[in-house]
């Protein structure tokens, strides 16, 4: 089943996969942060009293959550270069990693919009009323009372979102980004044994996801202290 395991199991190859893993981690981390910013915008849009930001935010979330991530990656992969050509007349030398980050960020932003929105909505309505009776403005209430409480509810699912992103970043191997999964495939072709590098890749993914979920549980416990 693993014909070339011995040959593949070299420091050089392990380091090669490690580089891929780091790249996956980096892409996921950047996408998570941009996704959080988009999520904050999205949640503000959804909570807005005005119709335009509300409609935009709702469309954003529905479209992104209602279509496959792989399709989104492929669309962005082909749309951005052709838009660039249409606007500037030049051909774009495309950076697939950048495309990957853009696609994953937009995708994650939609999910984080919902995480942030439900974190805010999850704070007891009585907190709003208490602030109202104390004369505080909506902005003061949000900043001083609601967000600090919502934050505790939002952080644990955002950490799970990070794990999802690490796994989903494997999808950008389809547009030619050499991250962890693609790295494993490269080794597979080299040694005529796909199984061994796949198993190694799985172990690398697990090391990343399991340690993050461990950190997540720790953070969750720490945040729960004053509840």
């Amino acid at each position, binding site marked *: 089943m693993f014909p070339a395991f011995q040959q593949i199991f070299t420091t050089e190859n392990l380091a090669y996969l490690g580089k891929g893993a780091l790249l996956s981690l980096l892409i996921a981390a950047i996408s998570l942060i941009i996704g959080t910013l988009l999520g904050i915008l999205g949640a503000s849009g959804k909570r807005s009293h005005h119709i335009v930001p509300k409609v935009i935010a709702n469309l954003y979330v529905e479209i992104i959550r209602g279509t496959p991530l792989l399709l989104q990656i492929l669309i962005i992969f082909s749309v951005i270069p052709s838009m660039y050509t249409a606007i500037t007349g030049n051909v774009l030398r495309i950076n697939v990693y950048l495309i990957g980050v853009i696609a994953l960020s937009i995708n994650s932003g939609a999910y984080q919009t919902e995480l942030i929105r439900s974190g805010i909505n999850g704070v007891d309505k*009585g907190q709003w*009323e*208490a602030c*109202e009776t*104390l*004369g*505080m403005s909506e902005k*003061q209430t949000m900043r001083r009372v609601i967000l600090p409480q919502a934050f505790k509810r939002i952080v644990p699912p955002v950490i799970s979102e990070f794990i999802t992103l690490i796994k989903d970043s494997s999808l950008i191997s389809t547009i030619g980004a050499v991250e962890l999964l693609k790295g494993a495939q490269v080794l597979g072709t080299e040694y005529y044994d796909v199984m061994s590098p796949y198993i190694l890749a799985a172990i690398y993914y697990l090391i990343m996801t399991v340690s993050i979920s461990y950190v997540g549980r720790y953070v969750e416990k720490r945040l729960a202290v*004053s509840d």
Partner: protein
Amino acid sequence: MIKVEHVSKKFKHTQALKDVSLEVKQGEIVSLIGPSGSGKSTLLRCIHGLEVPESGKIYLEGELMDRHDPVKYRAQRNKMGFVFQHFNLFPNMTVLQNCTLAPIQVLNQSESEAEATAMRYLNRVGLAEKRDEYPNKLSGGQKQRVAIARALCMSPEIMLFDEPTSALDPEMIKEVLDVMGDLAKEGMTMIVVTHEMGFAHKVGNRVVFLDQGVIMEDAPSEQFFTDPQSERAKDFLSKVLYE
């Protein structure tokens, strides 16, 4: 001091208040009593503006409370303190921070000024030594006393209480009622939605009895408890008082 004129309020399927009018004078302790669903909490919430009535007007010190004049409306609302059944303390802040947040944010008090005021009121409700505790470390009665101190820190002229003891364990009711009694003695104008007939009788000087969104009886406490006029009030009292 407060005048409620022909206020009606409808929720989805129920008419919570039907053309209610009421006047409360300075220094009065008015108890709003009645069966659940009678509209007493809704009336209190309408007075503060937590609920918007469909029709009717509310006057504070002779001046109309008008949402369309936000600056004035806000200043008027700030003259009223509100105490909730479920306390609604801020769980992410200490007792002291609960009390100083609004004075600092709304009244632009300095931190030391706000803390001095807060400590004065925490002393009065007997919880000065809990200043650095978080609400989850307090008993229900203590939480409600902090909530009262928090409201008092905004120097209200009227205090509105929405079933302040209904969520408490029985042995904690009295400590909260005592604080309210002290407040009454100092001349605070109070409107109290309550099921505590003893409090309504002894501390309150007027009872407003509501049923199905209508004021059925409005009488001095003594008279209401000894000689109720309406059949509905007689029936209610016969069911709640144990003699």
